[in-house]
């Protein structure tokens, strides 16, 4: 029982990442009709926004007096951080410690800008091209972005710790009446799940309760009719691209303490997120979220030792098996609309 509970928790945080990426992915597909294979790269860039913000906070200059010798025996000058000089030692330390949550303030504008540039500079030229062309160009863009990050940051992962206050784990076992230390779960993963829930809720609220969102939803349902009403739907869709990039970027930034960011992490999530979108139903926002959590939990259960003993390697194919079964029984996906991507 405790093992099952633990795997559900595992599935929820994994599902959170899938759901957040898939949400952005399906927003772009639903509004612009573009199959964006560079979306995983946006997740990766978001994570590197957190890395960059941490590096900005630790920018320093050399002390004027040597304090010892370096590894070659030459005089060594300590690094003095600007945040300590400007905000004092304790505030500076707090800012560095809380770099990842604070990086959201940096990530959102950067990702919106990147989203705009991507959409206006490249992707809009492929609106009326076949999906295969869109996939090729966005996949090429994903490789380019990955290589750019590798050029500037190297291939090694960057350790990006969560604030010290969230470094430990929560003992669910003790809380739920099981043996202590049998169901422990890292605080930051719980926070990530809550963060994902808030962001998903905010996106739904934005689309559901604002005029802008209403127009976008109408455009997703029938773009031509909305256009005939004199509404510049393209402009709104461009803004939605920026919002989707920001959502995915935030997902990446907050994910940085869970797994150290590296230039290839976008690719790791991209294929799975696409499966999530397809299973949820192309263009369906609730479908993406539902499928994200569902597949996260299924994958987590498939990785249990007891399951692997019976079917070795099942954890590596379970998501695709579920996708095949769902698409065979319900081709439009769990919550997809009829006619989308069926031609």
């Amino acid at each position, binding site marked *: 029982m405790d093992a099952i509970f633990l795997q559900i928790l595992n599935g929820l945080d994994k599902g959170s990442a899938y759901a957040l990426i898939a949400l952005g992915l399906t927003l772009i597909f639903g509004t612009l009709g573009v199959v964006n294979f560079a979306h995983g790269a946006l997740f990766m860039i978001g994570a590197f926004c957190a890395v960059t913000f941490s590096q900005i906070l630790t920018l320093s200059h050399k002390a004027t007096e040597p304090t010892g010798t370096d590894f*070659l025996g030459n005089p060594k000058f300590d690094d003095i951080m600007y945040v300590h000089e400007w905000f004092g030692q304790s505030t500076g330390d707090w800012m560095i410690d809380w770099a990842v949550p604070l990086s959201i303030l940096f990530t959102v504008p950067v990702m919106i800008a990147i989203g705009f540039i991507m959409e206006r500079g490249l992707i809009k030229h492929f609106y009326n091209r076949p999906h295969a062309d869109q996939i090729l160009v966005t996949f090429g863009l994903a490789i380019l972005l990955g290589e750019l990050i590798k050029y500037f940051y190297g291939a*090694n992962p960057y350790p990006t710790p969560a604030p010290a206050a969230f470094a430990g784990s929560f003992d669910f076992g003790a809380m739920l009446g099981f043996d202590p230390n*049998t169901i422990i779960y890292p605080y930051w993963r719980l926070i990530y799940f809550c963060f994902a829930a808030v962001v998903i809720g905010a996106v739904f609220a934005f689309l559901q309760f604002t005029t802008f969102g209403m127009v976008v939803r109408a455009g997703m349902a029938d773009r031509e009719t909305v256009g005939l009403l004199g509404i510049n739907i393209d402009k709104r869709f461009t803004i939605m691209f920026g919002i989707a990039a920001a959502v995915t970027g935030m997902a990446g930034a907050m994910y940085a303490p*869970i797994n*150290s960011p590296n230039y290839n992490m976008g690719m790791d999530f991209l294929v799975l997120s696409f499966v999530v979108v397809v299973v949820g139903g192309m263009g369906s926002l609730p479908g993406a979220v539902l499928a994200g959590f569902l597949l996260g939990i299924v994958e987590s259960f498939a990785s249990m*030792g007891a399951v692997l003993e019976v079917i070795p390697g099942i954890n590596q194919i379970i998501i695709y098996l579920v996708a095949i079964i769902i698409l065979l029984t319900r081709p439009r996906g769990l919550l997809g609309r009829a006619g989308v991507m069926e031609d």
Partner: protein
Amino acid sequence: MSTFNPTRRGLIQTGVVAGAGLALPTYLRADGHSGFTNAPTGDTVTLGFNVPQSGPYADEGADELRAFELAVEHLNGEGDGGMLQTFSSKALDGTGIMGKKVQFVTGDTQTKSDAARASAKSMIEKDGAVMISGGSSSGVAVAVQALCQEAGVIFMAGLTHSNDTTGKDRKANGFRHFFNSYMSGAALAPILAAEYGADRKAYHLTADYNWGYTTEEAVRSSTEALGWETVAAVKTPLTSTDFSSYIAPVIQSGADVLVLNHYGGNMINSLTNAVQFGLRDQTVNGKNFEIIVPLYSELMARGAGANIKGIIGSQNWDWSLEDKLGSRYAGTNAFVKSFGTKYGFPPSQAAHTCYVQTLLYADAVTRGGSFNPCSVDEALTDFEFDGLGNGPTLYRGDDHQCFKDVLVVRGKENPENEFDLVEIVEVTAADKVTYAADHPQFAGGSLGTCNPGA
């Protein structure tokens, strides 16, 4: 109107002429009649450095390439000479190799066997490389070593730790300076027993490829011999990035030690996940829960950040070795000085092994008086040397494996600088990690005979 009536005789004649024409350029190349592949004819000799320039080990590949460049500089008499000053063999004099200036070409292994073989093949066939070196993966090393054996060139392996490289997949044209899984297990076991006791329950997470298997086998057999029990060993896909699903069952397994047979990004992520799940804060079976990483790497330690603190593992070499343990490890400081002055930071063990392998190859050619792979083979067989940073070392002829001291290290709790990541817990003497060439963990392979190619 002309007609074309081919005859059997005409066809044979045409075929012979065409075949001779096609073969002529090959014959006119030196290797066509010099007795071995890519025999250098001019005043230069070309070496091929095949390292991961993209993919997950690209940082290690970059460090290997830096070391190769430095080695070439030193061989050509440029720079401060590095380890040429401390190397026990004095055959090298800074005039290249046998008077031929050393030049090099590079390839990108991408840490994929197919890509590594393709780039090595290209360096051998198009660039005329007479020796291939480098790499940061055992899968790649085994694949490229087999290619070099077929092609008739020498392979001086870079970072490869699997037993198989000099075990079941050993080849006469291949040589490994780096240590291996067996040596890690043999060096680690007594330290683990001393640090954590002989009554432990271990849970292994193992990368699902040949290096993972041999490392798990080596650590299991050496720790089980001490009295440890292995409660479970789970294979993890090489492509895994989030190990939380694998870490969670560890908590409920009753294990009090987690052995991470992972390397590179896998190690960084699995260790980070294990620490996040609070494993190291737990008390199981009345003992502190411990995590072990059999193969350490400075670059990976940097990637793991604070999570590496206090974690025990093993290394082939460390840049602080001579400072900490004295002149037995002579050559270390000379190399660190050359490397640090040129690049601004200390070299990794991947860089060290690549630098040393280049010097050893050049030395073997010079002592043997020929670039012929069979001459190099003969010169390196049972060659004993010193002054290259690891103390007295033997290149054993039976399997082309180097035998030298092995370091047991621990992630440093209070680093003094960004490069000060590990403390040396123990140096295990070479004789304690030496095994018979037909040891069961290395069985099933044969060196065969050297292949000069051509």
